[in-house]
């Protein structure tokens, strides 16, 4: 049986709980897990002051645990995790899966800003909406996601994939402004609409959208084609549960090159109407 955490006393101020990773909880009983230290505002507290803990953790680092409740003030869940699985029944706060290197996080609700900043591996799936900076570089850092996958079924805020270098960010709904800004490589797929200034300053990488979008004047039209890799990618996103239509899989895409202010080796693919 895996550990299960149910939010009993919602924190009145932000709760930083980077202890909530499979590796940290491995082999712990419920009372031991409840004694783990978290930061509630400016003081340390026990996890058990906020959560009812049941079950026993799986042995080893590849275990799974569940969190239930409105965790929108609980930050850093799964930060730095390398393996295992976290399932969150509810919404979750900032910095979910920050710098994670492996494993999987499933969020049944919404996620706040900074989902998976600077992650290098693993997968994060958000069934609801996500805030700003999904898969982005932290402030002051030039490089964002370097690997792994982030899948958001709903909408995201601004700067999704900011500075990403590798990996995949897939958004089932709409993306805010500056998606893929300063992108170095990697792929962003937006099934809904792209916001303003997508791909600003991108050097390489791909941004895919299914709706018409007006790009910056430093992007130029290259051709219209049906890239094979995109069919494979969209088929995979469909398997992950995103609502990818047949017309999107088999469709032709306008390829726009940019950003001319930088290397001009990035591309924005827009599904032809």
């Amino acid at each position, binding site marked *: 049986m895996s550990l299960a955490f149910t939010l009993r006393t919602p924190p009145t*101020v932000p709760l930083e709980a980077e202890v909530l990773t499979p590796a940290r909880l491995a082999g712990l009983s419920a009372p031991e897990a409840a004694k783990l230290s978290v930061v509630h505002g*400016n*003081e340390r507290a026990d996890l058990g002051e906020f959560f009812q803990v049941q079950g026993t953790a799986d042995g080893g680092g590849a275990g799974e645990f569940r969190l239930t409740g409105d965790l929108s003030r609980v930050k850093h869940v799964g930060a730095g995790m390398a393996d295992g699985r976290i399932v969150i029944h509810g919404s979750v706060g900032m910095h979910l899966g920050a710098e994670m290197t492996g494993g999987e996080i499933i969020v049944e609700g919404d996620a706040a800003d900074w989902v998976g900043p600077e992650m290098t591996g693993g997968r994060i799936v958000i069934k609801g909406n996500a805030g700003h900076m999904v898969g982005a570089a932290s402030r002051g850092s030039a490089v964002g996601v370097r690997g792994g996958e982030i899948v958001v079924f709903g909408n995201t805020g601004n700067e999704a994939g900011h500075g990403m270098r590798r990996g995949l960010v897939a958004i089932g709904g709409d993306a805010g402004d500056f998606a893929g800004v300063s992108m170095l490589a990697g792929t962003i797929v937006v099934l809904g609409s792209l916001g303003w200034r997508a791909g600003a300053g991108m050097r390489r990488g791909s941004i895919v959208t299914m709706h018409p979008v007006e790009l910056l004047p430093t992007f130029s039209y290259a051709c219209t084609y049906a890239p094979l890799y995109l069919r494979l990618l969209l088929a995979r996103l469909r398997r992950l549960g995103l609502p990818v239509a047949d017309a999107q899989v088999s469709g032709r895409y306008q390829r726009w090159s940019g950003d001319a*202010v930088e290397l001009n080796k990035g591309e924005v693919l827009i599904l032809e109407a």
Partner: protein
Amino acid sequence: MSENLKFVPHATCTFCGCVCDDMDLTVDMDEKRITKAENACVLGKAWFREHGIEQRPYALIGGREATTAEGVEEAAQILARARFPLIYGLSDTTCEAQRVAVAIADMIGGTVDTTTSVCHGPSGIAFETVGESTASLGEIKNRADMVVFWGGNPAEAHPRLFSRYAVTPKGMYIPNGRKDRTVVLVDVRRTMSTPVADIFLRVKPRSDFEVLWALRALVKGRRVDPSIERRTGVSLAVLEDLVARMKSCRYGAFLFGMGLTMTRGRHFNSGALLALTTDLNEFTHWVAKPVRGHGNVTGADNVVSWQTGFPFGVNFSRGYPRFNPGEFTTVDLLARGETDAILILASDPAANFPKAAIEHLKRIPVISLDPKTTLTSQLARVAFTTATYGINVGGTVYRMDDVAITLRPAFESPYPSDEEILSAIRDRVRALLGGNRVPAVAPAVAAAS
């Protein structure tokens, strides 16, 4: 007017970020008011005229008149008990007071944020990402033969920026003053500043980023789609002409305001302008400076940076400084309802913050320090009346170009300075915490609460 007059030469005006230090003040010492402010602009004259001594309680606690000491005790109890306290404002006080405010935030494991987060905070983010080619206003005065004002209206907001530094004054290498300069103004509408410009670029609202991005591409010799005119209101030919001028000047300066930093795109707008400045340095010398509003907001940036490593939005809850705008900036913290006490130093957020943030201000204990009655002081649990910096209080402030300037106060106030009150609060909080940084382990607080 009485005959008991005092003359204060070379005083400093702390109304705006120009921090003009050539004020010659005449003070009526019986009435405790400034009767004449030579060299001051219209804003400076009003600043000096309106800051006499008002008859107000030293402190109010829950609307009840109190002594300063009683206010200090109440404020210290609030801060020592708080789990996520916030200290905000700082931009209209001395660097000495700012330093104490940062020390309190550190001691209570709180967050310190300044009005920078609602004005040039985006520029602060951009500086960290892009870098800054900078200069003093004196250097701009003496060297700049091309000046571009972007997203601001200095004629009404910083009148002496034109006359003292950037448009009309003669400089070491600008012997003919205005005649030797090309002045460009970029804005979404005509303002009182427009007639000053040789070239006025009227851009469509929220299209500054596209214009800057196109300029960057043109500077680099890259193609720009002609659709730029439809989207921004500025033709490709005009942009090409501007780029030719910018590349061929001897020394150029961008002076940019909140019309750039607080419109859609925010830190990317500032970053685009800073990157354009860097691009232009491939051809000739260009600098960029944000035009700052509050008298010592630049000092707040400097003091908070010097003490924490970051300019604003700094959190100490883990025992070390963390910087993350959006997470630790005041509007965001208040709107999300995450902070449980706030000390507001020389600022009036209740007058200009979003509704959700103001609603949370009404729910938590507020401590306010201000020379005047404000909307914020009216909803405060503890409201201190303070002396006005620059008029009653000496100390140090920073001009918008990061030059430190010493204040020469005109007359004394019966009210204590921000620094005095903050120092007393700091000492009392330290005693309540029993020398510990983390409030949870302080027995005095536990007993009091």
